[in-house]
């Protein structure tokens, strides 16, 4: 291995260590936006990043009713059994994410943008806030 390559390898290793040791400690409370939904029903198993749905971005552009009544999204994170086939057939996200109203399904990375392994949840939700103190000591130990 050339010295330059080795240095690069160490730099990469260092970056990996930073990521592993600091992300759980430094970001033990994720600063994600209130209402950001991570949907990880099938993503991890399929080897893609979990999808992140930012409520804030969508509520600037649509009233709740459009998705939760017209498009049939239930008020339950991960409770809608969405898959890519339904989306390309124009259901759920596919009603807009078709290249006409919003970016089309080719842009995998824009929705599937979550950290791998993040469970399905609504960020900053009351349930998550209540659970936070129980998780904190474990996270602080790291």
């Amino acid at each position, binding site marked *: 291995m050339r010295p330059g390559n*080795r*240095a690069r390898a*160490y*730099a*990469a*290793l*260092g*970056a990996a*260590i*930073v*990521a592993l*040791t*600091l*992300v759980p*400690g*430094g*970001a*033990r*409370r*994720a*600063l*994600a*936006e*209130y*209402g*950001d939904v991570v949907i990880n029903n099938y993503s991890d198993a399929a080897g893609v*990043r979990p999808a*992140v749905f*930012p409520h*804030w*971005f969508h*509520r600037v*552009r*649509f*009233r*709740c*009713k*459009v998705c*939760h*009544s*017209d*498009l049939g999204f239930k*008020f339950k994170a991960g409770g809608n059994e969405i898959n890519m086939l339904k989306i390309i057939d124009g259901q759920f996200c596919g009603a807009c994410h078709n290249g006409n*109203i919003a970016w089309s399904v080719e*842009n995998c*990375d*824009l929705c599937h*943008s*979550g*950290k*791998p392994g993040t469970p399905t949840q609504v*960020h*900053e*939700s*009351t*349930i998550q*806030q209540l659970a936070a103190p129980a998780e*904190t000591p474990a996270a*602080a130990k*790291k």
Partner: protein
Amino acid sequence: MRSRITLYITLGALTGSAVSLHAQDRGGTGKAVYEKSCALCHAAGIAGAPKLGDAGEWSARLRAGIATLYRSAVAGTPNGMPAKGGNLSLSGAEVRAAVDYMVRSAGGAPKSSAVPGGKRATASARGAAKPAAGNPAQIGAAPASKPARETPTPTVVAAAPSGTPAQAAIDPNAFNRLLAPPGGRNPPPAEDGIHDPGNPGIHALQPPLESFQRLPRANAGNRVNWVAALGKKQIQPRWDLGDPQAEPSAMDLNIVREVKGSMPDVVYPHRQHTEWLDCSNCHPAIFVPQKGANQISMAAILLGQKCGVCHGKVAFPVSECRLCHSRKKDAPASSTAAVPAAEARK
């Protein structure tokens, strides 16, 4: 030997000192970025921006540590600093270089304040810098891609006094140790803890502050008063997918729910809800449309039922008690029940 040197480089990078080391190399970049993206406000001090070269203003902002300053610059602040100075094409390293340039202009020393007490680490990184000087970009690349708050390691934290937000979060005696620091709210997706910063598409996603800066503020949730934003037409969310002109038919009916104990009664306004939602969203699955037919408790709401289907997930959270519990109880009604109890205690 070679591998040990590179290991030192890595350690140096880990302790975050390489950021400031790197910043020196980037003096030119800092100035260029400043002139392109920062000078508009920071040259004249527009909108409360600390002026270039004003030692007083900059030292006040440096008191919380250079990492906090970096973070404010990258994520923006509610006081008017836009994320990355409004130029979102800048990388985090470029923004930090510009901050370093401005701090230096005011006679500050970003290096000494960056890692207080971390001299040992700085020295080792400096010692290792020479052999690797042939390719400085590699040294800086790893830490530069990380948000500033992540750079100090736990070992440095143990040795250094508190200062940066990451250190404050770990310090057992830190003020409000469980709360997110105000400057860290509404971070861009790459730094929010749920998005994968390694995702090549992440910079196409809109940073929340870019949107929120124009909207009325609130104390909780997204820190945006969505109802006011809609009422003032600062946002125009569509009521219908395909028809931008479609308007909801709001229902103006308040429902008063008298509650137990001393809490003010709840006034439920149909109007604000029907601006966003369809009747069928709540009725009849969540609320039976009949007076007295719905048992609602705070316990159920906290668990995500009834009002908690939205409030505590996307609508304003339950910490905002007074927004629902808004009608003072009638004086006679409360006095009959409460006064004897209060007197009995005497």
